[in-house]
């Protein structure tokens, strides 16, 4: 892929209205701490400034941690065709993203995939963070 087209692809992936509250990705998330978790959705908050969802993730020892993830504003997601019903409690999903700098079980979600590989919330992301 040429340099120019890779920028365009990056642009398509990062086409978003970032959430108004919290403008600095770098103040909250660490792009040196990528993460990938798979688990079951326990809650979806379709609210501003960030849509949020919560995932129960089981580690190898069987211990469950409830991870919190944020996306961009629901407005940006809706403009790309997603709705408050796009993700359901009980869905099994794999999330990639970046962990919060303060070490809590909080991440900024970059991709969300259902078990069958379908993407949810694709085409939107938060402000200033790395592109996938």
């Amino acid at each position: 892929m040429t340099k120019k087209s890779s920028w365009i692809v990056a642009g398509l992936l990062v086409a978003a209205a970032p959430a108004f509250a919290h403008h600095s990705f770098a103040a909250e998330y660490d792009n040196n701490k990528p993460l990938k978790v798979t688990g079951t959705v326990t809650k979806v908050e379709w609210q501003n400034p960030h849509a949020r969802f919560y995932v129960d993730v089981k580690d190898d020892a069987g211990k469950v941690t409830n991870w919190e993830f944020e996306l961009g504003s629901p407005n940006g997601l809706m403009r790309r065709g997603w709705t408050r019903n796009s993700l359901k409690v009980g869905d099994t999903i794999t999330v990639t993203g970046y962990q919060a700098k303060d070490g809590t079980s909080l991440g900024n979600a970059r991709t969300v995939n259902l078990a069958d590989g379908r993407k949810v919330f694709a085409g939107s992301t938060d402000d200033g963070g790395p592109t996938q």
Partner: protein
Amino acid sequence: MTFRNTGWLLAGTVALTVAALIPSAAGQETPAGGLGGPPRGQFVRGGRGNRLPAGPTPRLPENPLLGVNSGKPDFGGKGMWQVPYIIDMQKQGRTPEGGTIEVPFNPAAKKVFDQRTETNSKDDPEGFCLPPGVPRMMYTPYPTQIYQLADRILFIYEGGAHVWRLIWMDGRKHPPDPNPTFLGDAIGHWEGDTLVVDTVGFNDRTWLDAAGHPHGEKLHVIERYTRTDSNTLRVEATIDDPDYYTKPWTVVTTATWAPGQELLEYICQENNRDLQHLVGK
């Protein structure tokens, strides 16, 4: 901010700016059935995106009911202005001649700016759901619509949250001692096809951009808006604050018309969870 963070921020910025300028192919990622699908009616999306080819500047008709806006460029229509994400007005804006902006900081301003850079802009008032101020309303990527009435122009803005900005065009002057506000006291007039807006009366509680260029209550902003073609709003802002800058400086950016799109409600305050997680380093 580390080099890596700056690099990503810049990448994100370039990417967002590119995305704002080119037709969105995100429409081809239409969610499959069962995931919701694209909402109908309110949104125009998909395929080669929302852009129509650029045409000439639309104009309002000559009509006395339109007062000062009679026969003037039409800044409205069935659509909205997509405001780009200008994180750093110095890096992403241009001088009116198209060159690189040099910010004439005085030492106090540079100190404030550097502190905001070092702490990753964690204290950004926008993080508290406060209004962006001026000209930052055109740098924070929530859409806006511009309504032209007989004696005033109204900007309604999705972000900030859900705020309006009224520009009086009835010939009035600024009040002698305006109460300081987030968006200031704005008066405007036409110079040919350019809307010139003069705003004073700001409080010191906003940042000029996400990078943290500072200002105080003496801020005086002169904006020039020109709809250069049907798709493009040229936004020029001259920043004059003698407490922070040794002389006025001017930033040119743009906004892009999104036909058929509408503003949505954005109530930032409803679930603001990030503040507790913002870390300075």
